[in-house]
């Protein structure tokens, strides 16, 4: 179902006007009846009257293979759980929050009706049906939040039934726990003023939160185009594009001295062992509004002084137009006998020649030795070309700064590690100040042992520094710690830093999102990874873990006043990596790393069917008016024009004229100026003219926002009181 995104005005909206006390109906660790016999149950098992008196019971979490309160039989493809509870409908909020920790997939039934299907395929489900993806790592412990409409509950006793499915009977673990409580008080989302003209790449309505599906999901305002994928033959030099596509850096070619947003190099890291970097040349065809790949080749790391590269993870684009690729693994061996350990360095590449540009003192190609050896993730260089920041994913888990001796020259400089003056507690900085401590980096022995030196000198250990970026608005340094599920920021004062704080995140932090299906809640989850700023200061956060989303955080976001949007969901099995933009920020390039071989084919902006099953792929995204033919994948504007609301202004009664026989599942929602829903109605059958009465609503408001949606259609109307 395609729904057009809501326009800016609709962002005013939100939720019901009655704020209920946030009462817990049943909590985590509650008692459940369960069936773990490993057989298919009768269809009626989920119905309220089904006799479960002979079932076993125990408190959550229930399962096996991970810490549980109640251990059930193993191995299982599926286990079945039920629980009766009592509600007073008058005490319920309009939607009720269900939190479920599930490893791996679930179907949830309330009073016999399916209300949640998560990480499970569509269609009929049997005992043998396996979950869509494997849930592992920290994701196994996340309580995924779902909203259940109040209308699904009955006065008095209700029954919730959960069937939990494994990824495979051979899997070592299976676990479930859940809670149910009134939804948090509604949050009024302020207008997104940055998107008034709708022409910036950050202008979109959040996608509806979802487990990973068989396809890439991006907002309906946007399109994507496949640029290259794993296994494609290079156009020059032989060989083919490697796998595990990671940092995806657009480097503008200069046209008349100006960086081009339509002609450039696209550098794609391959986080493989052995590693590699693909250097492509791409340009934008203004007539077709599509990108064309004109050349592709492997970066040459074959010099004996380099000994190749491994696990080219993230990286950076320097202000002087080179690529820095980051080796994420360290090895101790010195194969070529040059005194340097072979792997675990940053390496600078000239995109024009697809060769390493950094030099050793003897003129041979070299890695950036003075920047130190570690599990490098990325690097960002300030616009002045004097400072670089980077972090280690693994090892020390620390944040580093490098002050170049000569601007625009990464080969020599002084190295520092970040020490929070009062440390971290539970992932939160205790104080707001920090110190940059110098780390010796001038001898081979020191360069080969950066991390143990930094650790001894007292650098602060985060957990999995995946990326560091600099805000274009205030110059603050932002960095992710994947293991702590948070993005931090600080102000660099030279030898010290201040204003250290958590900017966004926290694995269990739930953000409210305005989506095409209304307001949804979604946990940040774990795995915040690559970061990128656009020029407006929006922070794009790519997630490796959790549900592998791309989030976008507004520059004026605070944890107390969140401004978080959800841009994309990756195909099953994959994570998004390495987003960079063209200088005009019309286009963003990123990669889809390790999708499963079971994902579906798709149609991209070319209109062609694309198939990247099981192959890492690199794509470009843009607003749909900027990419591909206008007719591809767009909403039919003819239909939009055929829906007219009149009279406007009105004294209360309006007619919605639907001059189309194509609209199905029409929904009309009205919001007041506080963003509260004051009217909502669904029309399964669409008549040519709908008469709606807003007389009551206009007693309390002089203006309403109508959101009219149907399958493949959306329109927002500002309705004024006469």
């Amino acid at each position, binding site marked *: 179902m395609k729904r057009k995104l809501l326009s800016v005005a609709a962002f005013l909206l939100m939720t019901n006007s009655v704020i209920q006390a946030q009462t817990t109906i049943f909590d985590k660790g509650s008692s459940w009846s369960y069936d773990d016999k490993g057989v298919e149950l009768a269809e009626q098992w989920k119905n309220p009257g089904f006799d479960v008196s002979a079932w076993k019971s125990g408190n959550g979490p229930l399962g096996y293979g991970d810490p549980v309160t109640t251990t059930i039989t193993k191995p299982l493809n599926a286990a079945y759980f039920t629980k009766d509870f009592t509600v007073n409908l008058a005490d319920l909020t309009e939607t009720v929050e269900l939190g479920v920790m599930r490893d791996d997939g679930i179907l949830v039934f309330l009073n016999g009706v399916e209300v949640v299907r998560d990480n499970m395929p569509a269609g009929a489900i049997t005992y043998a049906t396996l979950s869509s993806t494997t849930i592992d790592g920290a994701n196994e412990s996340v309580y995924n939040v779902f909203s259940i409409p109040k209308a699904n509950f009955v006065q008095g006793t209700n029954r919730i039934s959960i069937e939990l499915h494994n990824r495979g009977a051979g899997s070592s673990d299976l676990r479930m726990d859940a809670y149910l409580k009134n939804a948090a008080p509604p949050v009024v989302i302020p207008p997104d003023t940055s998107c008034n003209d709708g022409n910036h790449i950050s202008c979109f309505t959040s996608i509806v939160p979802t487990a990973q599906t068989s396809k890439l999901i991006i907002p309906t305002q946007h399109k994507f185009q496949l640029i290259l994928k794993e296994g494609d033959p290079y156009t020059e030099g032989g060989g083919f594009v490697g796998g595990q596509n990671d940092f995806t850096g657009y480097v503008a070619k200069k046209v008349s001295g100006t960086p081009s947003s339509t002609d450039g190099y696209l550098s794609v890291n391959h986080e493989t062992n052995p590693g590699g970097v693909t250097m492509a040349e791409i340009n934008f065809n203004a007539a077709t509004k599509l990108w064309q790949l004109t050349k592709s080749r492997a970066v040459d790391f*074959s010099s004996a002084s380099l000994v190749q590269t491994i696990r080219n993870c993230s990286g950076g684009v320097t202000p002087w137009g080179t690529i820095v690729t980051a080796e994420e693994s360290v090895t*101790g*061996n010195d194969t070529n006998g040059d005194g340097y350990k072979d792997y675990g360095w940053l390496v600078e590449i000239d995109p024009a020649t697809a060769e390493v540009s950094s030099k050793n003192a003897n003129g041979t190609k070299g890695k950036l030795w003075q920047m130190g050896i570690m599990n490098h993730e990325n690097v960002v260089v300030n616009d002045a070309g004097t400072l670089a920041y980077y972090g280690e994913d693994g090892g020390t888990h620390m944040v580093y700064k490098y002050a170049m001796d000569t601007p625009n020259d990464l080969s020599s400089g002084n190295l520092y590690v970040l020490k929070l003056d009062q440390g971290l507690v539970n992932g939160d900085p205790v104080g707001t100040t920090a110190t940059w401590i110098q780390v*010796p980096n001038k*001898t081979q*022995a020191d360069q080969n042992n950066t991390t143990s030196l930094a650790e*001894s000198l007292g650098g602060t250990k985060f957990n999995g520094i995946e990326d560091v970026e600099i805000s274009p608005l205030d110059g603050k340094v932002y960095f992710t710690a994947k293991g702590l599920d948070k993005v931090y920021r600080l102000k660099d004062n030279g030898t010290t830093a201040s204003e250290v704080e958590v900017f966004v995140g926290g694995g269990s932090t739930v953000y409210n999102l305005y989506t095409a299906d209304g307001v949804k809640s979604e946990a940040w989850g774990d795995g915040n990874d690559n970061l990128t700023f656009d020029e407006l200061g929006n922070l794009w956060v790519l997630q490796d873990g959790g549900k592998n989303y791309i989030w976008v955080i507004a520059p004026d976001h605070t944890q107390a006043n969140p401004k978080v949007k959800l841009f994309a969901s990756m195909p099953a099995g994959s994570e998004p990596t390495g987003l960079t933009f063209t200088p005009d920020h019309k286009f963003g390039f990123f990669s889809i790393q390790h999708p499963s071989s079971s994902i579906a084919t798709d149609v991209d902006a070319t209109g062609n069917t694309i198939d990247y099953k099981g192959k890492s792929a690199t794509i470009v995204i843009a607003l749909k008016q900027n990419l591909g033919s206008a007719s591809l994948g767009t909403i039919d504007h003819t239909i939009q024009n055929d829906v007219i609301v009149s009279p406007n202004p009105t004294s209360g009664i309006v007619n919605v004229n639907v001059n189309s026989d194509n609209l199905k599942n029409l929904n009309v929602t009205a919001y007041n100026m506080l963003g509260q829903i004051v009217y909502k109605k669904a029309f399964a059958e669409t008549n040519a003219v709908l008469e709606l009465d807003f007389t009551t609503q206009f007693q309390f408001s002089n203006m309403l926002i109508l959101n009219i949606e149907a399958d493949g259609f959306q329109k927002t109307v500002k309705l004024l009181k006469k």
Partner: protein
Amino acid sequence: MKNILLFIAIVFSVSNAAAQIDPLKYPTYTDIDVALLSKKTVYSMSFRNKGLYNLPPDLVRMDSLFFLNIMANHLEKMDKVIFSLKQLEILNVNENSIKFIPDEIGELKKLKTLSMNLNNLNVINSEISKLQNLKIVHFDSNNLSVFPEALLSIPSLEEINLHSNQISYVSDRLDKIKNLKYLNLSANQINDLGELKLPKYLKYLELQKNRIVKVPETIFQSKNIEYLNISDNAITQISPKIKGLENVVSMNLANNKLKELPEQLRYLKKLKTLVLVGNPMSKETIAGLKILMPDTAIYF
């Protein structure tokens, strides 16, 4: 004689460098079906992070493979198909749940690099000593409680990484591993190194994060050590014989119980970096050391 040795070493190193995997010459396949269909010989395969519980049986047909990466899967054992790959030189099994190494490991005679970090190994099968071409072994972050005795019978080893295990006993005959240059035993449970004899060409020695109280004087006979890390232990004093480390460039003694250091440090003319943070030393002691070693940067 010294020059001849150097020449031999350079020739040896260059020939090794040429053996590194060039992605263009040896593309790494990540899909067994694609590899099976390839008209070219497949030398390198990676199944990293594929969620595998078992390896594809058809891997047996990839009999020219010299590189195999199966890291970050759900493997609980090393499938037999691995040992049919007689040309393997580099095997990466990191981040699985492997509990033991089968006897068949001894059949991979050409293996040069064996990496098994982050698994559940309690012991290293002695059959590994049949791998006489092995240069690099990584067994970081397993559950080993003793230094694997079998490694003493592989003189070709140049790098051994055993950090983050539970090792409390280290053989005093490490000198049998004649070519060893890099040894990492950090983050174990070592409190007594006995009369440890180190290999002659050892360059980097990492013993940090153990419970070592006394550094054996035999360590200070290692003339080729360039980097010594014995930080985060419980060392109370350093022998004057430390002057034997005549090629040491960087020494990390941080976070021990050292109140002072022997004045023989002044003989370490190549020492550029000395890290002393976290020791109960007075400012006067540090000032004295700075005068004693004007060419050494002291971090305190």
